[in-house]
């Protein structure tokens, strides 16, 4: 096993805790590990043929991830992708890293086993809205509250792709699908809201085709020390085409993407002419900047310990069909689960052997027959 340490995990090297590297491409690219050659996208691309439907948003995400990975400066053998079942779950086969394609919904638990037992690895989970929020909802919220060192990418296409088009826990009310010919009755989850309610320390949202924003978001996620949860709006052009057009389609996204940037006032619109301000009753509202004045705008603070601002922002849009926040909602440091422990256990283990085992067995009351 490699003894390599690098800037990605642990406090020694790489980005210091306070700097999440928002919008500073390349900053994480320098590693203090003995990487021999600069890595390229090809180093992260496996020889398996991709088998998503032509036009699927998963392709764009795959390209972004493969393109972004070299930046981390982590050799691919130190990286593990873990996925569940679903179209999103196939992601693992296309990354030339170590990988586990688990059963439906359990990827966060599998990955917890990897990450807690091997803090030297960089562990990434890819999951779908059914995988992570329907059958796997419990493992997700528990990974989040524990703050396991994982990057969890949720490909949210608001539908079950692999099983051919049933509604998912993020589908809108009244959704007509094969399993709901009369329209679904379910009120959907807002994944960002759920994650915040579950104590997530890092919560972000991005859009499949927005390469640059995806990379920025992944960069911040990679720099985060605990669980980073990233919702990615992903178009399923076969079973739910256009679900995210409001924030994804040319001509609409310019109007509807509310880009959150830490420390900056929340503004959006083609000309940044709109913004978010706190109304007289204390609620956040969408406003015209011209009307309220730029000073009235809420300044985004992703590092606030108390998650309410992030929660309020998440609730600006119940569905991604109108102005919707994109970016990093929350990024705060809190103790990381298990990682340090595992290292100290490895050290402990290195010190014990036959004599200690002997002593252990002889502990407590013993007697001797001769």
């Amino acid at each position, binding site marked *: 096993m490699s003894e390599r340490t690098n800037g990605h995990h642990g406090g020694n090297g790489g980005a210091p805790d306070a700097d999440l590297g928002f919008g500073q491409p390349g900053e994480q690219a320098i590693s203090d590990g003995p990487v021999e050659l600069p890595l390229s996208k090809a180093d992260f691309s496996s020889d398996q043929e991709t088998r998503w439907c032509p036009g699927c948003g998963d392709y764009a995400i795959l390209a972004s991830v493969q393109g972004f990975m070299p930046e981390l400066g982590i050799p691919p053998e130190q990286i593990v992708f873990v996925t569940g079942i679903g179209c999103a779950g196939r992601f693992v086969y296309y990354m030339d890293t170590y990988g586990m*394609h688990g059963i439906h919904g359990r990827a966060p638990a599998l990955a917890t086993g990897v990450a807690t*037992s091997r803090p030297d690895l960089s562990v990434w989970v890819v999951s779908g809205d059914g995988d992570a929020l329907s059958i796997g909802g419990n493992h997700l919220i528990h990974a989040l509250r524990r703050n396991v060192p994982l990057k969890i990418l949720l490909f949210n296409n608001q539908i079950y792709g692999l099983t051919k088009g049933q509604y998912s826990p993020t589908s809108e009310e009244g959704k007509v699908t094969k399993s709901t010919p009369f329209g679904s009755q379910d009120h959907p989850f807002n994944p960002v809201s759920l994650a915040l309610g579950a104590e997530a320390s890092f919560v972000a949202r991005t859009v499949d085709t927005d390469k640059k924003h995806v990379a920025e978001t992944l960069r911040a996620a990679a720099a985060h020390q605990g669980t980073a949860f990233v919702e990615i709006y992903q178009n399923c052009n076969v079973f739910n085409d256009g679900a995210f057009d409001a924030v994804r389609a040319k001509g609409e996204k310019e109007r509807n993407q509310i880009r959150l940037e830490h420390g900056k006032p929340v503004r959006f619109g083609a000309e940044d002419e709109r913004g978010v301000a706190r109304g007289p009753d204390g609620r956040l509202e969408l406003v015209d900047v011209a009307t309220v004045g730029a000073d009235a705008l809420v300044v985004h603070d992703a590092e606030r310990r108390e998650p309410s601002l992030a929660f309020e922002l998440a609730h600006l849009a119940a569905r991604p069909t109108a102005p919707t926040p994109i970016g990093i909602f929350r990024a705060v440091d809190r103790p990381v689960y298990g990682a340090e422990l595992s290292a100290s256990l490895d050290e402990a283990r290195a010190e014990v052997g036959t004599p200690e085992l002997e002593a252990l067995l002889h502990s407590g009351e013993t007697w001797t*027959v001769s």
Partner: protein
Amino acid sequence: MEEKTLEKLDRVVVRFAGDSGDGMQLTGSRFTDATAVVGNDLATLPDFPAEIRAPAGTPHGVSAFQIHFASRDILTPGDHPNVLVAMNPAALITQLGAVEKGGTVIVNEDGFSDHNLRKAGYESNPLEDDSLDDYRLFRVPMTSMTVRATEGIDGITRRDAARSKNLFALGLVSWMYGRPTEPSTNWIEKKFDDDPGVRDANLAAFRAGYNFGETAELLAVHYEIEAAPAPPGTYRNVNGTQALAYGLIAASVRSGLGLFLASYPITPASELLHALSRHRRFGVHTIQAEDEIAAANMALGAAFSGRLAVTATSGPGMDLKAETIGLAVAMELPLIVVDIQRAGPSTGMPTKTEAADLLMALYGRHGESPLPVVAASTPSDCFHSAIEAARIAVTHRTPVILLSDTFLANSSEPWKLPDVDSLPEIDPRFATEPNEGDRFMPYLRDERLARPWAVPGTPGLRHRIGGLEKEDVTGNISYQPENHDHMTRLRAERIARVEVPDVHVDDPDGDATLLVLGWGSSYGAIEGAARRLRRERGLKLATAHLRHLNPLPGNIEQVLRSYERVLVPETNMGQLSKVLRAEYLVDVESYTKVDGLPIFTRDVMEQVEERLG
């Protein structure tokens, strides 16, 4: 003071019983330690109430501890107590049924208030009517004598003092059976080092009990049980849970693999989580997962990462782990799944024993997903079975189910400590190099049909595994009919090829016609019964006990065919019988017991006598 009579006895079964708050478990374990020191062989069984803390004095709040000790090799905690120590009416009413007719009943008279009698469900006082006529009854006012003995100790109220009455009982019974006092007094002194009042009260209570035995006219006889002949060595007491924990740690040390346990609490498996959580010094990593599914997946993730990965549970948790175990079968990764069986179905009787998960262990997953199954037979055998499970898992890259049960987990026996160097070494043989030119084939197999274990971090061996059917050798996803057929048969074959030792048959004169074949915790009862029947009745019977339930030992068919009749006692409806019948078409006879209690020596004796008597 007249001299008391000293009688010699071969063996005694004592049961201490009282309210959950009465400290009966402590009394039992102190008595056990003093007994071990004398050199008696022994076996013990605690019996906890199902409730956390039932209202004092009620039958369902009774806590009991049974110890069987003898001047010869014994194998079970005993079927029926010869002596019952009952601290209150509830203890008496619930435990008396088990006591042998003519046995001794020692009661704490002070506990028999009207109030307590009513709570226990007595309509009249059994100490005063004829309900105990069949027993030798001793009424001892333990509470008041304890209170009196502790008078004047600083900072001890009457109430406090009364709580030491269990040590009075301990002292009394210690005298009766000639146990040395030092182990108990030393223990009290060490334990309550920082609380002199409590220490002194407990010491006083213990001595008062002991002296009461020696002086009171009530008890005219005391007993001597000679040391049992035992092979030389160092011994300690262990219960099945401790031994299992030690076995897993030993496997970690012997393999050089970090031990990783992910578990979700469930009776009786929680104790293993508790036990292993204390051993950070051995690098043991324990996680309390959000549920059993998560626990199994965490362990599987750790297995992929190169750990000695374990997940432990009981029946209901096994149901939940089934899908993940199937994934481990497909991934061909080492994983130890410990099932400490309890009485089912469903929630069943969580504190009672049963061994009815064998067929589930073998077949409880969808599709064809064979895996090895190993079962422990005695508390100390849990140690060796754990190492064996680890050996098979690591060597053969497969999940292994290790079966124990409530009875094994809780009962204890003296264990001759093994020589650590003699324990099997387990070589993980991690893959470190490409295995086909400069490429790595994750499903290229060795002579055992096991695939390479290449852990993340190893350069050049990046690969991806999962639950979809894989092409052999390459590990790529494959929907090819021939490949699936090949892989399905190969998965069966590689488990069938796991080398397991032949089963040992004990047939002293080689002329038995009846074989009693067991597995799991019935070992003690079967062996014990066989020894008695041979010794006392001269019966010819052979015995054998299976540690490996899958694959079965190579000689089992020949063994089965060597006897006219084969009796298989099980605490289920005949699960091993089913397996043997299907496999070998041998008309084995099933004895089934499904009352939440272990199989007793007496049960086996009866069954054998019916057939050979």
